[in-house]
């Protein structure tokens, strides 16, 4: 079933005559989960608003379920909007109690009271805010407010759901379990969801397609795995956490692998590129292994870069290690391995990665 719920054709949105979104084409299929990634101010919220028919493009067409949206007809817009629901980035609650806030969308749709109550109850329960139901929304904690905002959108059971960083203020365990539950709900109900987030884990956890925005344009769309492990541009690479980007130039091919001259080091990478092209060798940090000395690292299809530990940063499950050397490399090592290697700043290490774990990115002007 490749039915499109929403399509954008050559649309642009401006604020005060500044173009903040310019998308030649984007289509969202029924039932899919599309995650928007992009730096602050790149246009995620604006894209969600456009898809939610809340801003009017200055150019182009928005197609909803095959019907071109007429932004001039308030009545039709309202009908279409009632098939969707959105959670805004800020939890903008009304000066009512929590229950009334959650019931708003149902009230707007004229649902009979008893049914509305029942659905509200279910979602209050699900988001663990039942105990807050008669609290004025103005004195909730940040996370409680976000849960209320989330319940408010979920409760209307829409065809299309827009979520703008819906979990940002939630505590980690809740976020984790909610993400899981969310994924199940979406899979069960066939709801189409479009999701803006800054959390790479969330994007991967949701498992749908990912669209990366840069400066108001959609620069790469693909499966989460593809975008995260094979970003097509240097800026996307940096954004999805592919921090090792070694500039070089293709010298030729050997043994099915492209040979890249990166100044002090020569690297081998899978791919199909022509000699002479300027490229980056891109590697995800978790694909890079660290070793005490070079001896251990051998074999074809394995690249080695030497250097010194510049910085180590602890993270929840691992350590992030920056290495300065022939080429700057960022690796992620497990806590166990970190202990084994007893890494210290200034220590000399070898970083290795498989030829098939790296990929090449075109290096433009710079």
């Amino acid at each position, binding site marked *: 079933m490749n039915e499109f719920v929403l399509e954008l054709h050559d649309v642009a949105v401006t604020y005060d005559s500044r173009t903040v979104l310019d998308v030649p084409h984007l289509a969202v299929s029924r039932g899919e989960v599309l995650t928007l990634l992009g730096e602050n101010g790149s246009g995620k919220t604006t894209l969600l*608003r456009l898809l*939610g028919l*809340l801003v009017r493009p200055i150019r182009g067409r928005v197609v909803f379920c095959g019907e071109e949206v007429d932004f001039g007809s*308030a009545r039709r817009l*309202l009908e279409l*909007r*009632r098939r*969707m*629901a*959105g959670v*805004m980035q*800020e939890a*903008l609650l*009304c*000066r*009512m*109690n929590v229950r009334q806030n959650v019931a*708003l*969308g149902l*009230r*707007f*749709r004229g649902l009979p009271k008893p049914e509305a109550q029942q659905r509200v109850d279910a979602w209050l329960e699900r988001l663990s805010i039942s105990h807050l139901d008669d609290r*004025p929304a*103005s004195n909730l904690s940040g996370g409680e407010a976000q849960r209320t905002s989330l319940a*408010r*959108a979920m409760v*209307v059971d829409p065809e299309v759901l*827009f979520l703008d960083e819906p979990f940002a203020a939630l505590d980690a365990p809740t976020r984790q379990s909610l993400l899981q539950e969310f994924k199940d709900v979406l899979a069960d109900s066939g709801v189409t969801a479009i999701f803006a987030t800054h959390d790479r884990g969330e994007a991967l956890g949701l498992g749908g397609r990912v669209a990366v925005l840069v400066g108001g344009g959609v620069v790469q769309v693909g499966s989460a795995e593809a975008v995260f492990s094979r970003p097509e541009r240097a800026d996307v690479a940096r954004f999805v956490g592919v921090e090792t980007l070694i500039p070089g130039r293709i010298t030729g091919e050997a043994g099915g692998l492209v040979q890249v001259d990166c100044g002090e080091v020569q690297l081998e990478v899978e791919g199909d590129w022509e000699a002479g092209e300027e490229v980056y060798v891109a590697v995800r940090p978790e694909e890079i292994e660290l070793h005490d000395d070079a001896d251990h690292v051998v074999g074809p299809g394995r690249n080695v870069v030497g250097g010194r530990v510049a910085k180590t940063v602890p993270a929840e499950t691992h350590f992030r290690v920056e290495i300065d050397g022939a080429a700057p490399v960022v690796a992620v090592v497990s806590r166990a391995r970190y202990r084994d290697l007893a890494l210290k700043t200034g220590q000399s290490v070898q970083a290795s990665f498989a030829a098939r774990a790296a990929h090449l990115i075109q290096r433009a002007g710079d």
Partner: protein
Amino acid sequence: MELIWNGITQALSLLLQGNPQVLEIALLSLELSGLATLVALVFGVPFGALLAFKVFPGRGFTVTLVNTGMGVPPVVVGLFVSIVLWRSGPLGFLELLYTPGAIVLAQFIIAFPVITGLTMAALQQIDPKLLLQLKGLGASRIQLVAVLLWETRLPMLAAIIAGFGAVISEVGAVMMVGGNILGHTRVLTTATVLETRRGNFEVAIALGLILLALTFLITWLLTLFQQRSAAR
């Protein structure tokens, strides 16, 4: 000062004796001003919402007009309404002059800009993102405005209080278009003025106090509601 004291005594005795004429006048005041405020709300709130949210050519000018309306002297309103309602005027055939209807009309014209202007200011204070959020939840235009009015219930109640206060206390226009006719168009303010002109200051003060007490009562109820919702 003694006068004021006598006025208070007189006011109490008028009230306690349940003087039917004073009661009738007080009720008429309430009725007419209440009706005028209500009508002004019915027209002023949607119009205020329009001015707050819609951008259209001539909007700035309209806003200025409305705001100017808050400063139009009621006597000028009275004069215009009179001219229009005169037998010789364009609406003379309605025979509305010197009737309670004329009073409501004049008071409506006085309260309308107050309520429109304050509604506009209240609604403009709203975060535009909340508008988007509500639209995103499927609010129709009317539902949107209804929720936003509830959001701004504090300044909206202030607007109602200000509008009602402006008309219940008005005398010049009411005198002109109503004629201060006993039993028909005499309200508390015009009665107060009449008694002052007659030199019956005690009675004037008594009537003024009764008006104050009435206004206090109504305002108290509205304020109670206003401040209770301030708590949330």
